[in-house]
Each structure stands twice: as structure tokens, then as C-alpha cells.
């Protein structure tokens, strides 16, 4: 294992545990409602939305919107959404997205 990998993992572990511990230590001072509480509540959803949007639309520096015709990620996104809405099952939705892309790639010329 490289030193930078070890540092990254220890850094991730330290910051995550610090947050878990700080919540308890600051419990009396943390607002249960209001702007800050709402802000923290929205962080995970916003992070995940930010994470998937460029992937789904295949956007990157020098590769603008619509550069690729029907990227695999877009196909996966549609499949995952349909399966999740129907089944409410995280694993089924994820597996469905992967299978959809696998099938798409079996198609000759795709």
C-alpha cells in the first residue's frame, strides 16, 4: 500500500469520526431547525445529484453536452430510475442499470 493511499484512508477515517463525535459534543449548540439545520439536511442529496449529473449527461472539460450519442450512463440512469420507482429496491435498481448497459453493448455496432 502506498503512503498516499494510507494517508487518504486515515484522513477519511479521521474526518468521518470527528463529525460523528462532534455531533455529540455540540449537541446543545446545534440548531435542530432553521437555516443551518435545513442546509445540513440537504447536503447528501445535493452531493449525490452533483455527482451523477455530469456522469449521466457525459459532461467533462472539452466534452460538452450531447457530444456522445446515447452515452451508456444515460441508458443506465433511465433503467435505474424506472426500476427503483417500481421496486423501491436499491440493489435491484443498481443491478438493472448494469444489465441494461450490458445488453446495450451486446448490440452490434453500439
Amino acid at each position, binding site marked *: *500500500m*502506498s503512503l*498516499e493511499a*494510507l494517508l*487518504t*484512508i486515515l*484522513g*477519511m*477515517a479521521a*474526518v*468521518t469520526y470527528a*463529525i*460523528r*463525535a*462532534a*455531533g*455529540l459534543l*455540540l*449537541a446543545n449548540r*446545534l440548531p*435542530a431547525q432553521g*437555516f*443551518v*439545520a*435545513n*442546509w*445540513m439536511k*440537504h*447536503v*447528501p*442529496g*445535493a*452531493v*449525490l*445529484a*452533483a*455527482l*451523477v*449529473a*455530469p456522469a*449521466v449527461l457525459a459532461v467533462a*472539460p472539452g466534452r*460538452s453536452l450531447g457530444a456522445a450519442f446515447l452515452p*451508456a450512463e444515460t441508458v*443506465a*440512469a433511465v433503467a*435505474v430510475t424506472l426500476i*427503483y*420507482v417500481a421496486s423501491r429496491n*436499491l*440493489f435491484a*435498481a*443498481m443491478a*438493472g*442499470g*448494469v444489465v*441494461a*448497459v*450490458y445488453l446495450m*453493448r451486446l448490440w452490434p455496432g453500439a
Partner: protein
Amino acid sequence: MDRPVSSARSQFWLGVTLFLPVAISIASYGVVWGVLAGQKGLGVLEVLLMSGLVFAGASQFVALDSWTPGSLPVIAIVVATGIVNLRMLLMSATLRPLVSHLSLPRALGAMFFVSDEQWAMTMAEMRKGGGSVAFLCGTGVLSWFAWTASTLLGRVLGAFIDDPVKYGLDVAFTATFIALLLGMWKGRGDVVPWLVGALAALVTASYLEGKWYIIVGGIVGSLAGALADQWRIKRDVA
């Protein structure tokens, strides 16, 4: 109270028992994380250390997304981990009543087990009049074993997959994140943070190399969501 206060031991095992179905779903995406970790060049020891010490699924998926051995963006990954896990601050804060009788070191120790699923189940028990720190530890210990073991299993099994792209596994990330995101849907209040976060990320990703768009989108989107909440409250009061 009619019900006698149950012993810590029985509370622990109640936590373990009630958590079993959740542990199965955690283990299933733990296997996926392990397979993806192998593709990104993480060794068995790295998988064991990260799952065992960080023990926070969503942030570990985010970290893998940016994992490039040889030139690891150490700071960016640690910052992104902090942002993704910031929500745990409020979770441990709400659990304070459960640990108020414990010494500080023991109370802090129990907080290691705070994550979405364990917190949600312990809060549900508290709302029913139960719940205890032993219960939280029961769910947490099972969750930790399920997560660590399944990610290791995925890492070992993944070594037998020759061409991940052929099997569509390269999109497993995006697929997992979309499913996780959809699972977080609580109502119309989520529209603004998600849309603004996505747009901010798209703009950032088209101009900036690296994974900074995750952090920019996460901060801008969540602030927009909180502003929209404020505005809605004001409008409802008026």
C-alpha cells in the same frame, strides 16, 4: 412504565435481530463497492482499512470515484468525505439522550456506529419509547461486519472479472448513486437542492478538471435548498 427496562444485553441482540434485513441490503452493495474498488486499484488491505475505519458507504463510493493510484487527490477526497458525511453531525446530536448516562469516552465510542441505517432504526425505536445505546451498538456491530466482510468479498471476487466494461460494470457507480439519490426523496423540498446541485456540478465539470464539481454542486445545491425552505416558511406564515 409497564415494560421493565430491558437489559443492555437483550437490547444489543434486539438491535442485531431487527437490523438483519438491512444488513443484507448493505452487504449487497458492499460486494459491488468491493468489485469497483478492485477496478480502481485498491488492494485487499486498503479495502479492509477503509471499510473498517471509515465505515461510511456513500462517502466510500465518492472516494472510489476519484481514486487514481499514483496521483491520489488526497485533499479533495478527504474534503469530499467530510462533506458527504456532514449529515452525521445532526444524527449523533439527536442520539445524545441515549448516552447521557455514560462516561464521555464510552459515549464517544458508541458514536462510531452512527450511520444512516443504524441511526434511522435507533430513532424509530426511540419514537416507540424504546431505543438505547446498546440497541445502537447492536445495529452498528452487525452493520460493521456486513459492510467490511462484503466489501472484502467483492474485492476478492472482482479479481475474477476480466473485462469490467464488457459487463457494464463501469456504470455501476452512476447506477448506485442514482438509486441512493432516489431513495433519499422526501418530497418537493428536494427539487431545488437536487436541481441546483446538478446544474452547478454540470457547469463546474465543463470547466474544471478533477472531481471538484462534487464539492461545488453539493455546497451550492444544499444552500439553495435551505434558502428555498426559508422562503417557503416565510410564505406560509404570511
